[in-house]
Structures are given as structure tokens and as C-alpha cells.
């Protein structure tokens, strides 16, 4: 007795309005400041994040440099703040790319069925069975060093998830009356997919946005740590951890620990919100 849930986004937001806000609060407490930082950091009175000054290198946290300076004298605090931009930007890009690849693929697989679905499903299974980090690495090697290529590589890695999600939503809808009616009135398959089917999958997709963002930030940081991510002078949390890594054993913890802390709070905030969104969707 499968009930085809045709939940609209409006319905989700109507459910338990006041409690919703309370439940999102923990995640938002961290995320909202981070987003604000990402948006407005150029207007903050910070030190120049790219200013190299070897005279003041390796200074511990102080009033002048809140998070200290790193191995070549760059101010860690301002770099961490500026890195917020890049990391958020890339993760948003990754999620958008993942959705734009995965959602149509899943919709096509679910709608047309038959051999198309089998082939697409096999591919999704195969791509999901690769360790995601290695997959990102190899695609990044193939595509090249720019930031866009990085985002595309990670987006490709995450897309199977969305393809599977959309397919599982579209498949039961295929035989409903209103889709049949759309077919009868002469709408093309493409129109049906984009005007009827994908909007039905939107609530589910949106509820997964933040989780995918968290995953992609993690991968970006990991790849940058290995040198495969954002090119070095640009401040990015992962690569900052990497530059400071060799000095921790000598007691200089601040160049690596603060970026990691920022990473932690971002990922944590995103995960919290994604959990709440997911439970709202499944209601």
C-alpha cells in the first residue's frame, strides 16, 4: 500500500513552525556567523591575508594577530576568515554541479525505465562503490588544477547520490494519473521531467543540500591538504592545515589548529541543519 507522498516545500515549512526554528537553532548558531563572514569579510578591519612578512613569522596568538602568524608571517586570523569565502563558494558550487548532473540522470532513469534505467543504475552503483576521496583525486588529476575543475570533480563524485534519490522519487510517480494526463495532452518527455517530476523531488533534494555541502567541504579540505585542491596562496582551511602541519611537533600549533576549528564548526553546523531538514522531510 505505497502512499505516493506529494509533499510540497510549503507543507514542510508549515509543519510545527515554532519548534522548527528551535530545532534548527544549534546548527544555525554556527552557520549564520560563518555565512556573514563569508559574505562581508572584505569589509572587516583585518590584516592583509596575503601579506608575507618573514620577520614576524611563527608568532603565537596575540592581540595583534588573534590566531598568530604562520611559517611565512601571514596572519592566520585573517586567512581563516578569508578562507571561509573560498570554502563556502566551492562547496555550494559542488552541490549545484552534483544536483545538475545527478537529478536529471535520476529522473531520466526513473521515468523511462527499462534498459535505460538498468544501465544508469549500474553506473550509479559502480560510482558509489568507489572510495570517494580517491575518486575525487583521480578526476582532479584528469581535469586539471583550477578551482572550477576541483568543484566539477567533487560534484561528479557526489552526483550518484542525487541520481539515486531522484530516481527513487520519480519511479513511483511514473504511473500516476496526472503524469498520464500530461502525456495524453501531448507534453514531451523533457517537459514532463522538468516541469512535473523534478519539482516533486525538490523537497528531498533541498533537504540534502546541507549534507552534501558538508561532505564537499570535507573533500575540498582533504584534497587541499594533499596539494590537489585550491592552489596555495589562496587561503583555504585544508591547505592552511597542511602548511602548518610540519611545525606542530615543534609546538607551533596555531597555524593548523585554528583552520581546523573553523572546518569543524562549519561541518558540524551543516550536519546539524541537514539532520533537522531530513527529519522534517520524512515527517
Amino acid at each position: 500500500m505505497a502512499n505516493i507522498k506529494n509533499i510540497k516545500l510549503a507543507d514542510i515549512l508549515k509543519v510545527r513552525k515554532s519548534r522548527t526554528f528551535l530545532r534548527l537553532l544549534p546548527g544555525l548558531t554556527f552557520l549564520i556567523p560563518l555565512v556573514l563572514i563569508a559574505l562581508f569579510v572584505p569589509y572587516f578591519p583585518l590584516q592583509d591575508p596575503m601579506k608575507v612578512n618573514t620577520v614576524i613569522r611563527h608568532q603565537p596568538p596575540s592581540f595583534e594577530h588573534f590566531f598568530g602568524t604562520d611559517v611565512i608571517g601571514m596572519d592566520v586570523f585573517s586567512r581563516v576568515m578569508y578562507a571561509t569565502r573560498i570554502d563556502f563558494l566551492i562547496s555550494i558550487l559542488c552541490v549545484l554541479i552534483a544536483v545538475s548532473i545527478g537529478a536529471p540522470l535520476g529522473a531520466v532513469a526513473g521515468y523511462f525505465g527499462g534498459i535505460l534505467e538498468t544501465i544508469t543504475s549500474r553506473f550509479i552503483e559502480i560510482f558509489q562503490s568507489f572510495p570517494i576521496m580517491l575518486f575525487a583525486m583521480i578526476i582532479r588529476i584528469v581535469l586539471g588544477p583550477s578551482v572550477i575543475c576541483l568543484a566539477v570533480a567533487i560534484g561528479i563524485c557526489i552526483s550518484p547520490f542525487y541520481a539515486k534519490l531522484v530516481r527513487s522519487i520519480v519511479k513511483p510517480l511514473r504511473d500516476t494519473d496526472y503524469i498520464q494526463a500530461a502525456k495524453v495532452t501531448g507534453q514531451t518527455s523533457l517537459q514532463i521531467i522538468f516541469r512535473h517530476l523534478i519539482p516533486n523531488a525538490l523537497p528531498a533534494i533541498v533537504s540534502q543540500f546541507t549534507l552534501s555541502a558538508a561532505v564537499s567541504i570535507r573533500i575540498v579540505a582533504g584534497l587541499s591538504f594533499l596539494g590537489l585542491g585550491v592552489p596555495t596562496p589562496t587561503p583555504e582551511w585544508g591547505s592552511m592545515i597542511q602548511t602548518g602541519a610540519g611545525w606542530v611537533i615543534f609546538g607551533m600549533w596555531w597555524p593548523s589548529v585554528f583552520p581546523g576549528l573553523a572546518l569543524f564548526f562549519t561541518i558540524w553546523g551543516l550536519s546539524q541543519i541537514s539532520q533537522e531538514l531530513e527529519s522534517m522531510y520524512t515527517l
Partner: protein
Amino acid sequence: MGIFLLKRLGTLLLALFVISLISFVAVRSVGTPVYLMVGQDFTSEMVKSINARLGLDQPIYVQYARYLRGILNGDLGVSRFTYNPVIFDIAQRLPATIELTTTALIFMIFSCLLAGVIAALKEDKPIDKAILFESKVGVSVVEFWLGLILIYFFCYRCHLFPSPMGRLSFLAPIPKHVTGLYTIDSLIAGDTKTFLMAVHHLILPAFTLAFTIGPGTTLVTRATLRNILKTDYMRTACAFGLPRRLLYKYMLRNAAPPILTVLALAFGYFISGAVLVEVVFAWPGIGRYAVDALQNSDYEPIIGIILLVSVVYIVIYFLVDIICANIDPRYRL
């Protein structure tokens, strides 16, 4: 069951084919330094002869066939940095990674998996809430950052653990090579001092590695068991007065497929996540090898390692799938 096996085998072969294709494309896109090999004053004949020697003038599918044949013979290319065949380099460093990942897996099973089980059984009691909170926090921690923090506290501050310079202290003798795993080899040789030293060096990296997917495993185990405890069939088993022992057996048998799958994913993730941890702790495994190659723009080892690791991961995933289908008949549908 037979048909299911065939289908999964088919998917396995397809996956191996796809990964070999991807790595072939990667190798070709990285290119061969023909012009470097030829030198400054070159003639078109020299280029042609080198191309013919490397097989670069053949149609693409022939090149792919050659590549495939090479792989199956163990030829993963040659490292431009160490000048060794990649497979040789990997064989040298593999035991270190295996030691690390296996220890991490054991850590994880006895801490995180167990914690998940306990949290599910003691539902909503304080210990459940504590485990839940700790896991939720742990999931958001990035492993290479955690490793550095651990190094700072335990190596620099407390001197409890040795500094991350590899598997044994600087001048310690390496145990006689039987398996390549220092812990096992030193035990075989009866050398407890070296054994303890090897373990001492293993603890921090293995813990960090276990932490990468440990909290996630706890959450999945806990959620799976909680759901199972609420099912109708567990209620029926209770209703017929079955003893605790049998109830646990029923519960674990139903939980086995998702938990095994997560463990397989964990192992696969360990193999790849070991890259990050090995860098932080200067562990001489294949992960470090890959990163060193990367920094030297030496791409063949990386691709070789990725290929190897992906193959291992896919095979493990496949095996776990078969085991799950054995336990839970609904899988075979």
C-alpha cells in the same frame, strides 16, 4: 542465490572495467614526456621511433588493450622519482599501510561498534545520550586535523607517545622480515622490546584513522539496532517469551547486513583515508608514497595506487554483499 551471485559478479567485472578505463584515461591525459625523452635537437624520425616504442601510434583501443594486459601482469608503470617499477614500490610500502588499517579496524570494532550496540540497548539513558553526542561531534571532525592535535598534546606536551617519525624509533633495529608487519614479525622473532615499540608508534595513527569513520559507524549501528528493537518481529519474539540470548541472536542477525556494509565501507575508507593520516604521522605506507609522488609531479604511482585501492575496495564490497545476501534472503530479490 545463484542468479544473484552472477548478477553481482557481472557488476563487479563492470566496475573493474570502468575503473581500469578511468585510470587508462588518467594515464594518457597525464601524458608521456616524449619530448623530454627526445631532448632538445630532435628529428621527426626520433619522435616517431619513440612513439612506436611506447605504442603511442596505435589506435586507442589497442593502447587500452596493452594497458590492460600490462596491469594484469602487474605492470603499473614506472615511478619517475624512485626509478622503480610502481608495483615494487607499492609492495615495499604495503605492509605498513596494512598494519595501520588493520589496527584501526580493530580499534573501531571494539570501541565504536560496541558503543553503538550499547547505546541502542540502553535507549535514552544517560549513556546513550553521551555516546550520541560524542558521535555527532566526532563525525564533524576532520581526521588530519585531529591527528595534529593529538600529536601536539601527546607528543609535544605530554611526551606520552613518540614523535611521528614512522613505525619505529630512529635507530631501532627492524625485525626480521616475515610478513613485513613489524608487530607480527617482532613477535615471531621473540623480540618483545621491538614489539612494544612498534605498538607504541602504532597507537596514535591507528586511533586517528579509526576516528575518521568511527563515529559514523557508531551512529549507523545505533540507528540500525534501535529500529530493529522497535520492529514487530522483535516484539513477537518477546511475546513468545524467548530468552535474552535468543533475542540478541535475532537482533544481531537482522543488524548484520547494514553493519557489515558499513564496516566494508569503513575498511575501504581507511585504505583511502590512510593517505591523509600517513602524511600527518609520516607513516611509510602507500598513502605517503602517493602524496610524495604527487608533490614530485610523478603521476603514474598515484594512478597505480588508486587503481589498486579501488580494486581492493570493490572486491571487499562485493564479498560483503555476498555475505549479506547469505544472511538476509531479501537481498537476493
